[in-house]
């Protein structure tokens, strides 16, 4: 289990003990709400990061993340331990994010552009704060981040989700295929097209 787990990234403390987590999941399955709370808090940052990169803004990402955990609690009885918990939870998150986007009927591109109209969206600002660059470097980074988020928003939904799961969660093609219900070969192709599209969009900014 631990060997197959992707390296933690963007989580609050940067580390998740998957063995302990499985114990909490098991307790939560028998109705232990507090144990479920521990699971939520351990993985919340990671699920939020995936949701944010997919949705493109903090409000929707927060909503999708909350929906994911509420659905997970409701469906916990259907979770079988033969499957990896993080694969299971990301599947719920991916569905919740795609549902949310479709229900809202929003145009990703315009949403991104709207968001970028604000001088420093919170997430971009957070990223900029994390680095102590010179002002000209900060400006370049800001431009690059904004252009990147715009390019990401223009990707097809499935391509974007696959790229996020691979790059953010370090999932293998097989794991992504399980989450997205497709073949590993399809994952490989979609990743390639996603990278190509972003590269084309960003050009010299990369």
């Amino acid at each position, binding site marked *: 289990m631990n060997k197959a787990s992707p390296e933690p*990234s*963007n989580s*609050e403390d940067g580390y998740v003990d998957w063995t302990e987590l499985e114990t909490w999941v098991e307790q939560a399955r028998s109705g232990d*709400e507090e144990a479920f*709370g521990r699971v*939520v*808090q*351990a993985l*919340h*940052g990671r699920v*939020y*990061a995936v949701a*944010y*990169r997919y949705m493109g803004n*903090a409000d929707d990402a*927060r909503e999708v*993340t*909350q929906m994911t*955990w*509420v659905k997970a*609690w*409701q469906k916990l009885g259907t979770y079988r331990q033969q499957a990896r918990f993080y694969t299971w939870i990301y599947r719920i998150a991916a569905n919740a994010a795609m549902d949310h986007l479709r229900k809202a009927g929003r145009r990703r591109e315009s949403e991104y552009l709207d968001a970028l109209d604000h001088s420093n969206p*919170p*997430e971009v*600002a*957070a*990223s900029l704060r*994390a680095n102590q660059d010179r002002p000209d470097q900060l400006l370049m980074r800001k431009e*690059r*981040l904004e252009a*990147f988020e715009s390019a*990401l928003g223009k990707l097809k939904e499935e391509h974007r989700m696959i*790229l*996020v799961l*691979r*790059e*953010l969660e370090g999932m*293998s*093609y097989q794991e992504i295929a399980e989450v997205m219900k497709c073949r590993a070969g399809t994952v*490989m*192709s979609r*990743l*390639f097209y996603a*990278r*190509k599209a*972003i*590269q084309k969009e960003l050009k010299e900014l*990369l």
Partner: protein
Amino acid sequence: MNTKAMDKLLSGALDGELTPGQRAQVEQWLANHPDAVAQQEQWARVGDLLREPLNPPDPEMEWQAIRRTIRSQAPAADAVAAETPVFSWRMAWAAAMLGLVSLGLYLIAGFQLHQGTLMAHGQSGAPAEVEWAESGVPGATMMIFADQETGMTVIWMDVEQNGNNDTKELEGS
């Protein structure tokens, strides 16, 4: 191998998802194509951009919000789960009982109508008035009744012959 197929392999190589044979192909390609090296580096930077730090909400605060949602939905869900089957069963039972009663009434009415029709056509085996009389013949019984269709009085006699009942119409008037 064409460039597009090789590009896919270059992307797969970034993810460490190639077979040893494919890896060897990619390494050979990279050795002879500096532009491919640059491309791979650019793709790697896409990953770096995705992993830029975010500013996620406080997990504990979020859990409080999630727990409130879970708790607010739980009673409603329980109520629906508890009520829906009962409601359905009641409806099903009511419908079944109604169906049975309707069927019963229909059959009874149909039977009575059928009997009435038979009576009207004189096909009923049960005449209005029947008299039983001594026939004076050993082992025989006699039945006298008025045929409603013809208005005649009919006398039926059952005569036992060699252990068998033989019914004969003897007389009409």
